[in-house]
């Protein structure tokens, strides 16, 4: 038998792209469990339906592009996109909303740009923003958390998704909405008057965020990504909130802790900002990228028209990532400082 001729290195590390994607999927489990506990089966139904649509869209796109199905499907990237988008969607979303969102993510944001690795924008967030702009009513209808409202059962959740007309669920403003629309009350009073608020942020929300933080910490431990971008984002957001907290007056944007544990903060920090494809690459670049996302999240949450802002902040910074990379090239061994920054 002829000997194989292969160039070095002959050894390979244990990590594979499929493994990375799978780890990300696993790391979302705590967050999804907590979401389901506080808001019912809506998110789970979202994810199941969304994953099916995602696989169909991915297969279609691969077929149209003449790529081998099996090889590309097993990188699990479509499932990651679907899961991330469906976690961000309100529970009990109708099937068509999810389908449109997933199709936008996979077909428009991903495959139109050349598939995995070539997309300039985070597909899940691009799909989310398309939905948010197109269907603002459905996209802002969050269910009340356990203890505040009544949770629909699994059957009702399926009904809400596939026969939306027959579903009559209740919706309620999220703590971020309340904080934004406050025009006369001190934060303390706001807290007392609204049952949605919990110990540090919204009931359920604080635990959901902590769960995503835990999942993110596990990914960090697995060395799937580096700490730079998420920590910079959380620091940027907390810093902005601390500066503009205003001692809890009626003009306050909310405390740092409130912002860290509200909405999609932790989810965004560990599952979206860390998306390697669309973020900056170098260490300094990731710090800048993360910090800018954090600052933008705060600005849009408090001064913008939308209650949550992770998706917008991420998309804006996706634009800036190549620019940041260009100016943050590391100094190569044996070169002078500044030489690489052309």
């Amino acid at each position: 038998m002829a000997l194989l001729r292969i160039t070095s290195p002959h050894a390979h590390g244990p990590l594979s792209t499929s493994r990375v994607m799978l780890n990300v999927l696993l790391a979302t489990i705590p967050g999804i469990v907590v979401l389901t506990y506080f808001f019912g089966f809506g998110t789970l139904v979202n994810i199941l339906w969304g994953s099916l649509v995602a696989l169909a869209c991915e297969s279609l796109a691969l077929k149209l592009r003449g790529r081998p199905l099996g090889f590309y499907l097993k990188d699990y990237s479509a499932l990651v996109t679907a899961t991330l988008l469906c976690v961000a969607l309100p529970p009990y979303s109708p099937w068509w909303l999810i389908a449109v969102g997933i199709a936008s993510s996979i077909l428009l944001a991903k495959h139109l740009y050349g598939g995995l690795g070539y997309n300039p924008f985070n597909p899940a967030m691009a799909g989310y923003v398309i939905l948010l702009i197109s269907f603002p009513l459905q996209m802002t209808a969050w269910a009340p958390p356990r203890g505040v409202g009544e949770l629909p059962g699994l059957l009702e959740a399926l009904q809400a998704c596939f026969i939306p007309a027959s579903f009559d669920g209740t919706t309620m403003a999220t703590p971020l909405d309340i904080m934004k629309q406050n025009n006369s009350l001190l934060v303390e009073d706001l807290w007392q008057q609204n049952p949605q608020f919990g110990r540090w942020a919204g009931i359920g929300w604080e635990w959901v965020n902590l769960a995503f933080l835990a999942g993110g910490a596990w990914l960090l431990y697995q060395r799937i990504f580096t700490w730079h971008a998420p920590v910079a984002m959380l620091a940027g957001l907390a810093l902005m909130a601390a500066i503009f907290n205003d001692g809890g007056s009626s003009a306050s944007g909310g405390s740092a802790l409130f912002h860290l544990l509200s909405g999609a903060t932790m989810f965004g920090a560990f599952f979206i900002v860390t998306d390697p494809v669309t973020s900056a690459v170098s260490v300094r670049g990731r710090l800048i990228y993360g910090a800018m996302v954090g600052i933008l999240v705060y600005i849009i949450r408090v001064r913008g028209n939308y209650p949550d802002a992770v998706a917008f902040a991420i998309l804006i910074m996706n634009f800036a990532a190549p620019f940041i990379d260009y100016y943050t090239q590391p100094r190569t061994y044996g070169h002078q400082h500044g030489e690489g920054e052309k």
Partner: protein
Amino acid sequence: MRKVFNFHGGIHPPENKLQSVGTPIADAGIPPELIIPLSQHIGAPAEPVVAVGDVVLKGQMIAQPKGFVSVPLHAPTSGTITAIEERQIAHPSGHRAPCMVIASDGQDQWIAHSGCSDYSTLDKAQLLARIRDAGIAGMGGAGFPAAVKLSVREGVKIDTLILNGTECEPYITADDVLMRERAQQIVAGAKILRQLIDPVETLIGVEDNKPEGLAALRQAAQGSDIEIVEFPTKYPSGGEKQLIEILTGKQVPSGGLPSDVGVICQNVGSAVAIYDAVVNGRPLISRVTTVTGAGVSQPQNFDVLIGTPMSYLLDKAGYQADKNRRLIMGGPMMGFTVPSAEVPIVKTTNCVLAPTEKELPTPPPAQACIRCGMCAEVCPASLLPQQMFWFAQGKEFEKLEAHNLFDCIECGACSWVCPSTIPLVQYYRASKAEIVQLRKDNEKSEQSRVRFEARQERLAREDAEKEAKRAARKKAAEERAQQSAAAGGDEDPIQAAIERAKAKKAAQQAGASTENELEKLEKAVVTTRKRLATASGKLQQAKAEGSDLVAALQTGVDKTQAKLEAAEKALHDYQQVNEAAPEHAAPTDAADAAIAKAMAARAAESALSDEEKARANLEKLQQRLEKSITKLAQSRENGDEEKIIVALESTVERLSDKVAQAQQQLQTTEGA
């Protein structure tokens, strides 16, 4: 405890070193045939100094270095040179290369050799000569001639001498066992090197995964100021640049040498070879090589003769060919696959790795780059491998160079860590080769461009000069035409009438014009004279050079001379006849009468000019005579060859005859 520094990036692949350190270094023995490539080092290949059929002794030089960056080769054992031919060698390209083949006689008989146990008596030049003559090329893998590396340029101060015992590649343990078993020789080698380059400090750097080697070195170095430095295991800390950073905190400038930061590095194996060369007078004819991988049943280290076929060595370690699909020379990170097991072990072969498919699986097809950035995290040169990968795919060579592609040390850490199994290093290697090729091509086309432009410029200049001359001539012609036009106004109507009549007459008696005849004769005289002048010039030259053509040229000159005389005579006769002609010829008509009148005037004129001609002729001849006389005088003075002088004498004689003739002629013309 010395402070050690960290370097950027690096990886921790499974070490797989334990398999091969269980037993002491074994002697691989003498194979029946040794294949010694002429180029086992960086630089010019060596040049054979023995021929096919020659009997060589162990340690005898069989090939000499060709140029400064080159090393000699020695016979690893005694035997007969059976061939000097192209053989398959261990090279990434898989090419064949010139090799010397020795059939060993099994006697292993040494040539007379002597070392110098007290090397402190040797000066630097003597030490360097011994190292060079022993054929030592860097044994860590690159194979740079040790003597060249150790020839520090004038005025460069080396602060730190580093012996590299890092051996960061997985699987390889050749340096490890060398440190365990031959620590004394390593330290002795270090002392020789220290004497040679006189550094401020001498360090031996070893990773902390070799406690036995470290202990042996520390013991051997006791009492000396050679420092053994232990640092954390991380690939590729054994890279020269990385090791320098670990031990000194300094970075070798891009494109520079370690000596630019006052450092010289040598492998511990090279140190042993240098010790052997200086103290024992033993050239580099064997080395320690690790044979390992799950494809051999007894992985271990061998002391193996250079030129031993890989298959011979593998069999000693219990090679199971059916389990092994690729043979690697070197380690799993930077080693290269060999085309067959028949390639020889060379001076740089630190390891032969025979892995099973399970052990080192064939890489799966590459997936898309997800820009995870792990490659940048592990890059010891702080490059951006993923950006460079994009540029390499798009063949954007300028951007690749701007991203410092040429600072890539091809350690393979980026490929190792890439979750999408993209063969990044392969892209960089290919791009480097393409850029080097492009540079060469550019250089060539630049030269062609310069040459082409110079030619264009020259042609344009010549054209311009020609054009200017043409313009000048044209202008002169126009001026002349204007002048003659202006003169034309005063032209004699009679003359014009004559001309017209002559034209008519000429038409009537086509070709028979007496004038034509006269002109022809005059022309003949002039051309013959010219020919004579050139011929005699040539003759002179030929005589001066002593050419064989002298005789032939002489006849030529004589003939031309005769012709000239005939032509002159013919002209003269014709003129004489013509002078009388008008008297005999009866004018037949008015035109003829006019012609006759004009002709008479011309005859008078030509009679006058004849005398002048004769005078001019005489003057010319006199000049030539004078010249010939001076030449003759010169030749005599210079003591030229007899025949030249004789020839010149005859020339002078002939010319004086001619002058006499011309004088006579002049007198006759004057008389006429």
